[in-house]
């Protein structure tokens, strides 16, 4: 009898223990991967991790740096092998990153609407996480996937750095002119006075930025009149439609002026810039072989500390609109670049990973993190170091609603190669623009269909997200809200709607 009683008591106790064990959280490991090898940056992230661990003794945060060149491939391989770190830096919102985000990363739109608990005691307490960002988290919104997939920690606007002494001595001006035509004259003067000095040190990583900075604002007004589908971004099917109807051609204004302006800039750069690494361009500038160079706040610390000459920073010269004596509209820089992070769906600690990102983007921590690295902070009310004030993002400009120049992947590949050749003068602008029209008409439809096949994965993931939100609402209503379920459903439906509409447009376009 005693044995039976003991057995029953043991069963009761072990059931309780078993449960207690299940409910006692063991140590949670959070791994964050980024593709910046700079020791200052790694050290700042590690400091943030230590501070977070002090607040959460059951959590261990590891910061892992991966070389930039192999980073995308590394993330891709780990995704397939289900070995992704919990938090991953996204290098872009387009190309391979779009398909990776759709399949392997967590949509964050729902949680972005909740307050960031780490803002308690500040003026941002109780404010929705997304609204604590200077740009309302626009940089983390992936319009083609209709969701927030990443959380930015800084703004990475590009500006023009200049060697004050050389510019004055060879260019005859104190600061670079703001108009592109005037800037070009200064560059020509520099070349005449010293043929061994290049006016502009440029690297291949800046080539896509030229499109962002020059083409998009210049083509914006025409784009606004041509895009009658009125989505928040210009969709590639509209480019194809307008090309076919003859309402748009890359060979005509304003596209012609935009590419000519980019060519103007390319002419002032060193030979072979389209294959030059950022470090080589940086060396040219620091060694006094180039008068100007482009870069972000991340470069500022290097230039200020390592140059043997006074360095100035200003905005890029802006081209004038065709047959008007006014410059192009200023581009909104919210989505122009940042270091931003995604949360892996493969993580065993999704909520903790999101929590760490909330910590990094709390007012206090974002200020500390960005100040220690000399970056421009992304959170409202954070202090900005005087030397990075010139990198304040322009948040009042236009979106750059311009006809898309490429669709992933084959047209994009063609565009990247030929655009660089045109900038370097290997092919003429006329040849390039005629070929661009031709490429779109010949391959645009197939490319759009190919891209939508990639988006199919996004649909499946969005379906899953919608199903999970619904299941939570049915069985664990305390874990979610109807708003979150609606958001998941809305993202999914709009993604599928876009694909259905594209299919219909292509079918009726005799493509």
């Amino acid at each position: 009898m005693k044995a039976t009683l003991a057995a029953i008591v043991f069963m009761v106790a072990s059931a309780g223990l078993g449960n207690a064990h299940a409910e006692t959280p063991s140590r949670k490991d959070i791994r964050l991967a980024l593709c910046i090898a700079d020791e200052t940056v790694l050290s700042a992230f590690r400091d943030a991790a230590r501070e977070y661990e002090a607040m959460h003794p059951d959590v261990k945060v590891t910061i892992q740096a991966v070389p930039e060149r192999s980073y995308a491939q590394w993330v891709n391989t780990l995704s397939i092998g289900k070995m992704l770190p919990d938090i991953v830096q996204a290098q872009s919102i387009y190309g391979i990153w779009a398909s990776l985000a759709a399949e392997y990363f967590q949509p964050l739109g729902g949680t972005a609407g909740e307050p960031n608990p780490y803002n308690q005691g500040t003026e941002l307490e109780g404010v929705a996480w997304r609204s604590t960002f200077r740009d309302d988290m626009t940089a983390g919104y992936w319009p083609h996937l209709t969701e927030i997939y990443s959380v930015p920690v800084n703004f990475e606007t590009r500006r023009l750095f200049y060697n004050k002494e050389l510019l004055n001595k060879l260019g005859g001006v104190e600061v670079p002119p703001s108009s592109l035509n005037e800037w070009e004259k200064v560059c020509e003067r520099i070349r005449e006075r010293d043929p061994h000095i290049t006016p502009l040190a440029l690297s291949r990583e800046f080539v896509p930025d030229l499109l962002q900075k020059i083409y998009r604002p210049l083509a914006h007004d025409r784009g606004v009149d041509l895009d009658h589908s009125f989505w928040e971004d210009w969709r590639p099917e509209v480019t194809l439609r307008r090309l076919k109807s003859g309402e748009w051609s890359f060979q005509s204004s304003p596209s012609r002026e935009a590419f000519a302006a980019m060519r103007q800039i390319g002419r002032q750069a060193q030979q072979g810039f389209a294959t030059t690494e950022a470090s080589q361009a940086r060396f040219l500038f620091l060694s006094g072989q180039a008068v100007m160079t482009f870069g972000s706040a991340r470069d500022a610390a290097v230039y200020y500390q390592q140059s043997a000459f006074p360095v100035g920073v200003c905005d890029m010269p802006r081209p004038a609109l065709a047959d008007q004596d006014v410059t192009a509209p200023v581009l909104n820089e919210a989505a122009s670049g940042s270091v931003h992070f995604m949360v892996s769906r493969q993580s065993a600690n999704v909520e903790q990973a999101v929590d760490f990102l909330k910590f990094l983007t709390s007012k206090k921590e974002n200020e500390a993190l960005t100040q220690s690295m000399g970056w421009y902070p992304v959170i409202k009310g954070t202090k900005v170091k005087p030397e990075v004030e010139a990198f304040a993002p322009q948040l009042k400009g236009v979106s750059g609603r311009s006809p898309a120049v490429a669709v992933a992947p084959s047209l994009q590949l063609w565009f990247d190669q030929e655009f660089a050749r045109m900038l370097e003068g290997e092919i003429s602008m006329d040849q390039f623009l005629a070929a661009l029209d031709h490429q779109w008409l010949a391959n645009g439809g197939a490319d759009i269909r190919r891209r939508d096949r990639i988006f199919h994965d996004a649909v499946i993931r969005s379906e899953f997200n919608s199903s999970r939100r619904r299941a939570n609402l049915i069985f664990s209503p305390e874990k979610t809200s109807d708003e979150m379920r609606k958001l998941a459903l809305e993202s999914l439906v709009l993604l599928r709607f876009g694909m259905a509409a594209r299919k219909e447009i292509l079918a009726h376009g005799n493509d």
Partner: protein
Amino acid sequence: MAKYRNSLFALLACLAMSALNGKTSTYDLMQGWNALDRMDGTSAVAHFRRAVDLEETSPASRAEALYGLGLSYGYANPPQVAEAVAAFAQITKDYPSADCAGWAALESVLLRGRAGDIDSVAEAEALLEVAGRYRDHAVIHEATLRAAMSLLEAGQGERSVMLLNDHLRQYPDNEEAPLMRFLVAYWKMEIDEDYEGALPILLELANHNLAEPRRRAMVMWSIAQIYRLHHDDPQTALVWYRRIVAEFPNEITTGDAQRMISQLEKTP
């Protein structure tokens, strides 16, 4: 004394069994959902299956476990359609009045569509059958919305728009109504190029928030553009561009609206 001893045994036995069973099914459900969230289908299926098979699991927990099982099979790679459909069917058969029954019926059709078991038109028909079967359940609205989406994907835009309009007439304030209106308006604009037809729907939509707040700015942008480009009415367009700037000061569309305002104000 013996009587008391027997009662004590009975009480302890009862406590032990309820602790074990209740907590085990709760534990398995929790672990099942966690595994599903981290895409570990094998583990999710094992936990949900165990919760289903335990004799002592309550009806509500078993229905939940079957639902989890259906989703785990449905989102497996590749999906195990027959197993998922069977799990959902068991819910609708054994727990027809449970709240999850209508949603299980919806999930079952959706997964068959995703897996390619049925084409888009058949999916739409099956979804409409779910909507008809669960007329007093919230699923009626999403099932109708999904049926309309399937018809759009099947190239039956006209039928899809008609379906949504009929549903909106019958249930003008249903919880999916803003999204339904959005689809009708944007299909009219993008495919039919029927801006006249889209405008009243957009005007209605401008008064309601979609789940993603920035989309109302996009709706207002569409209204302004229609007045400017299709109605030749720049003054009314101006009113809407100004509303965007006033109501969405930080949206990316705001810069575009500001640009239009400055251009229109320069025009005599």
